[in-house]
Structures are given as C-alpha cells and as structure tokens.
C-alpha cells in the first residue's frame, strides 16, 4: 500500500458509506391510500400526523396518520379486524374493513414496480 492508495481507499470507502442510505429509501413508506369500494378517496402523505374521517358503508371510519405509519383508528364494523390490525408501516401493507367497504394501504415510492426479479 502506497500513501496514495490509502487516499483512494478512504475516498471510495466514504463514497460507499454515503451511498448506504440509498439501500433503505427504496421500500420507504410514503403515503397512505384510503379507498372505498376500490376507489381512492384520500391520499395522505406519511410525513405529518393527521386524522381524517371517511364515510363508509356502515358509517364513519377514522383514519389516523403519523410520520411513517398509518392505521384505522375506529370503524363501525362488527368484528373490528382492520382496527385491530394496528399500525401499518411497510409499503403495500393493507388493512381492509370489509363491512364498511373501506381499505387503507401504504404506497411506497414505486408502487407499480415492487419487484426487481427478472
């Protein structure tokens, strides 16, 4: 190893370290999508906390968004499956309140391409 080699090594090591965050943004959750009967009725960015109420088939459901996650906080459905599912954090995660025709899903940056397999 010559002195310049150390400089080059250090430079590339820093560049590699600087690239490391790229590995984690790919699947980053970006927004919560609320649908009724499959139709998008609200898109909420996962950057700020919000609470919205949406009208479902049975009544009002409450969607709660916090930075990086979202959940269905309340729903008039009889079995409460979607509420008990809790916070959704991963892209393509979905909570479905079938009785009230409401669904909440998390969309990542590249919703239409979620796989790199070829």
């Amino acid at each position, binding site marked *: *190893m*010559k*002195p*310049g*080699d150390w400089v*080059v*090594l250090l430079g*590339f*090591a820093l*560049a*590699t370290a600087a*690239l*490391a*965050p*790229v*590995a984690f*943004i*790919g699947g980053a959750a970006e927004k919560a999508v609320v649908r009724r009967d499959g139709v998008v009725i609200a898109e909420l960015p996962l950057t700020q906390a919000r609470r919205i109420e949406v009208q479902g088939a049975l009544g009002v459901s409450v969607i709660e968004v916090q930075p990086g996650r979202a959940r269905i906080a309340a729903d008039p459905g009889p079995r409460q499956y979607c509420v008990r599912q809790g916070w959704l954090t991963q892209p393509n995660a979905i909570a479905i309140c079938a009785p009230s025709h409401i669904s909440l899903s998390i969309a990542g940056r*590249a919703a239409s*391409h979620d796989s*790199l397999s*070829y």
Partner: protein
Amino acid sequence: MNRMSGQSIELTPTGDDDRIARYAAAAIALSVAEAAIPLPLPGVKPGLANIITLVVLARYGWRDAVWVSLLRVVAGSLLIGQFLAPGFFLSLAGALASLAALGLAMHLPARAFGPVSQSLIAAFAHIAGQLIVARLWLVPHDGLFYLTPFFALAALLFGLANGLAAAKLLESAKPA
C-alpha cells in the same frame, strides 16, 4: 492448407501473442473457478481475473491489459455457457469501463499510487459500467439503483483484495 487456392497460410505467433495468451489463460481459469462460488446477489463477484489484468497492466502496459481482459470476457463466457447472454454483456460493459478507467489511472504518479488504487478505481468503474448497461437495457427502471450500495460495497472489498493480491504478485515475482 487452403485447398481452394493451393496456398498454405501460416500464422506465426509472436512473443506478444504467446505472452497475452498465457496471461489470458490464467485470467480465464480464475473466472471459471470463480463461477463455481455461490454468491448472494446476482452480479456480485470477486473478479479474481482482474488481478491478472492489473499485473499485465503493470508489466506490459495498457494494450496488453485490454487484450487479456477482453479475451477473458469472451473465452470465459464461452466456457461458462454465458456467451451473448445478458451476463456476458454486463461483463463486457464492466470490463470496458474498467479498462477505460485503468487507461487513465495508470498515469497517476507511480510513487504514490500502486495497484491497489488502480484496482479500486477499476472496480468502481466496473460497477458503474454494469449499472448503466443494466439500467438502459435489462432493468429499465430506477429501482435498480437501490442496489448500488451493495455493488459499491462489493467493489470496495473485492477491489481492495484484488489490488493487494496484484501488488503482492508484482512485488514477489519481478520479471527478469
């Protein structure tokens, strides 16, 4: 014998040819051996054959390094059964990019920069060339670039290892 014209054509290998063939054979053997090693991510390989390229570059210059490297890509892919498959074009793109980078890197002052620098520069040029070809042709989506950190890490580790190996070889076996 060329029966049609009745003339015989003889090809006399020059010293250059012999030398290049010898080094290319060593590089091909390394790339075939390396194909047997299972690796976690497609496209991530140690690139042991680049040790040969670096040694040839240091001893005989850039022209010979280009020959050895390209012969290795073509003949190696024939042996592995990858010739003209996507992997072959990725190898070729990587090899061309790193040869271009080596052509520039060899002009760095030899007092301060050795084979390790050249190896690292070539390794990063290699992944850059591959990523560009892959993005333009194989995976036309920016999602590909999410893999960049893994390729960069591999280039850093294997570039360093190959460079150290080449430096060791050049040091221990100086040509007469």
